[in-house]
């Protein structure tokens, strides 16, 4: 550890104070400089970076208070220490209220100055570290995995950017595996609540009693088996975002309870008589047809309108095949890195299969397929069709709709299933061996 990187600027109209502090800081190994007045100090602040500025409160022209205000405008993180005589302690206190780190009454005990500067340097380092960490969080939170260049995805990204800045409730719609939670995380990550948690709860995964406890928490002994007090997810999300996945699956009672919480931002944990106040943003997601449920009185209309303030519809992967290659490569890079594998590419043949496949499980299925392929890829440095578990399925979805193309793909699949055993394949296809040979020849099928 050394002080060489730390810059200290001494601003005092009294030469002896400037000079003695300058010399002291130099012997301490700091980068030091002096300024005789506020104007000179501001010039030096513009010229180079300073960590700590010691400011005499009483100076002709611009006084220390005014200079401090200018400094804070230039860089709010610069540590300002006020130098004052005993007679102006009140002003120093005032300066501290305006953001000064501390003040020194002249003359100062060397030990006190030493400790004060050391603490200020530590504070400055912590501030810098804090800023760095915040930037890191920012990068990580913005490092969304919403990959794709299709117009649909670009539109979704625009919608995320728009709604993230507000505190509006968002309803995300889309098939299973389309990345609804990812969109929720991206909204949270770009919102002002990003330094607070995003708490996800899968409403479809809990029976009614348990969901209630999950959401609201409970006191010890609130119900059989409640051996300990437990904080609910609503409380955990305080300050941040709560993400209700599969919101269409909650019971009528839960719908009512939830509506009350959304309206009052208050709830009472099970078995407790204390009301808990919370502040969170709500993002909900569903795969079900909520409008139909509302029409059939399965979902409360008032809750529906409360949740459906801003709606984002995520298209299924099959409707944006242009993104498949991008997403596949994204997962390849991600999982290859985490598995420490030197797999850098997907062969054109394998990519063709990925693009042709129907992806009923959407991006989740694509992710799992790439992850699995990386496990079975062995020592190869690219993923081949054999590494995909989709061989069978892919060829069930041939590129064309003509009978010939379907027949070709079907024969190819049967042959591969039997490891090109002609007799067995012919038997499965309910044709004779000669016909099969003719078809192989006709379609140019190869092992």
């Amino acid at each position, binding site marked *: *550890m*050394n002080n060489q990187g730390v810059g200290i600027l001494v601003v005092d109209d*009294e030469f*002896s*104070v400037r*000079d*003695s*502090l300058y*010399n*002291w800081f*130099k*012997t*301490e*190994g700091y980068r030091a400089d002096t300024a005789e007045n506020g104007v000179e100090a501001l010039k030096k602040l513009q010229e180079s970076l300073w960590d700590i500025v010691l400011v005499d409160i009483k100076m002709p022209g611009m006084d220390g208070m005014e200079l401090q205000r200018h400094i804070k405008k230039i860089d709010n993180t610069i540590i300002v220490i006020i*130098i004052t005589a005993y007679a102006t302690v009140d002003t120093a206190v005032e300066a501290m209220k305006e953001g000064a780190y501390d003040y020194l009454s*002249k*003359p*100062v*005990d*060397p*030990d006190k*100055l*030493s400790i004060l500067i050391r603490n200020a340097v530590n504070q400055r380092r912590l501030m810098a570290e804090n800023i760095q960490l915040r930037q890191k969080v920012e990068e990580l939170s913005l490092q969304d995995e919403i990959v794709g260049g299709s117009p649909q995805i670009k539109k979704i990204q625009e919608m995320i950017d728009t709604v993230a800045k507000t505190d509006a409730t968002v309803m995300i719609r889309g098939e299973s595996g389309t990345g609804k939670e990812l969109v929720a995380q991206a909204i949270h990550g770009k919102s002002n609540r990003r330094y607070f948690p995003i708490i996800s709860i899968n409403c479809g995964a809990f029976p009614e009693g348990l969901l209630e406890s999950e959401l609201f928490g409970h006191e010890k002994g609130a119900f059989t088996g409640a051996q300990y007090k437990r904080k609910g997810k609503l409380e955990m999300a305080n300050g941040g975002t709560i993400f209700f996945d599969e919101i269409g699956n909650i019971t009528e009672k839960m719908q009512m309870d939830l509506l009350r919480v959304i309206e009052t931002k208050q709830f009472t944990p099970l078995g407790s008589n204390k009301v808990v106040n919370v502040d969170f943003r709500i993002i909900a997601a569903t795969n079900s047809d909520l409008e139909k449920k509302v029409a059939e009185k399965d979902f409360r209309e008032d809750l529906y309108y409360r949740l459906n303030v801003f709606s984002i519809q995520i298209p299924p992967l099959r409707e944006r095949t242009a993104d498949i290659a991008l997403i596949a490569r994204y997962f390849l890079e991600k999982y290859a890195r985490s598995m420490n594998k030197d797999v850098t590419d997907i062969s054109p043949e394998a990519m063709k299969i990925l693009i042709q496949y129907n992806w009923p499980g959407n991006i989740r299925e694509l992710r799992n397929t790439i992850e699995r392929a990386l496990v079975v890829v062995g020592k190869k440095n690219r993923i081949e069709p054999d590494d995909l578990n989709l061989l069978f399925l892919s060829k069930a979805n041939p590129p064309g709709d003509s009978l010939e193309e379907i027949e070709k793909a079907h024969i190819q699949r049967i042959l591969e299933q039997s490891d090109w055993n002609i007799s067995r394949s012919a038997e499965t296809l309910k044709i004779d061996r000669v016909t099969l040979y003719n078809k192989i020849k006709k379609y140019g099928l190869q092992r």
Partner: protein
Amino acid sequence: MSYIDIIPIGEVEETLLLFLKQSLFQTFNIQTRIRNCRFDLSLVYDPVRNQYNSTGLLLELINDTPPETLKILGVTELDLFIPIFTFLFGEAQLNGIAALVSTHRLRNQFYGIPEDEALLRNRLLKEGIHELGHTFGLIHCFALKCVMKSSTYVEEIDQKPTHFCKLCQQDVLK
């Protein structure tokens, strides 16, 4: 031949000066000598603080410096200050010629405890080497076992050794 001149300011015990003369030679391997000068202490005295301005004394120390003088260490019993600080154990010109050290606050007596002559010598030597170290361009060192470690109270002086750490030693020899 070059010398480190040890210059008493005001009345200073001769045994202390002789001790410094011998010890500083051993540390810096530069000839040392005691040189007497006349000072007008009224110029650096602050009656309100009842202390002597250290920076002013440093400037007086370099008046009429003989050509063979490499460094100067002023030694005084006077209580030193600079305007911003309540007191100083010593002061030096960083990369300059002159350094100054005061025994005033190195004495146990100042803190109301019995005098310890050996401890005083030890403290004086450490501060003398420390301030001269600044004239050789050394800044405060973070090594606990280095005489260049900063000391803002007397007990802190007692914690450090009378020698430089390896890195500071190398810098002095340059």
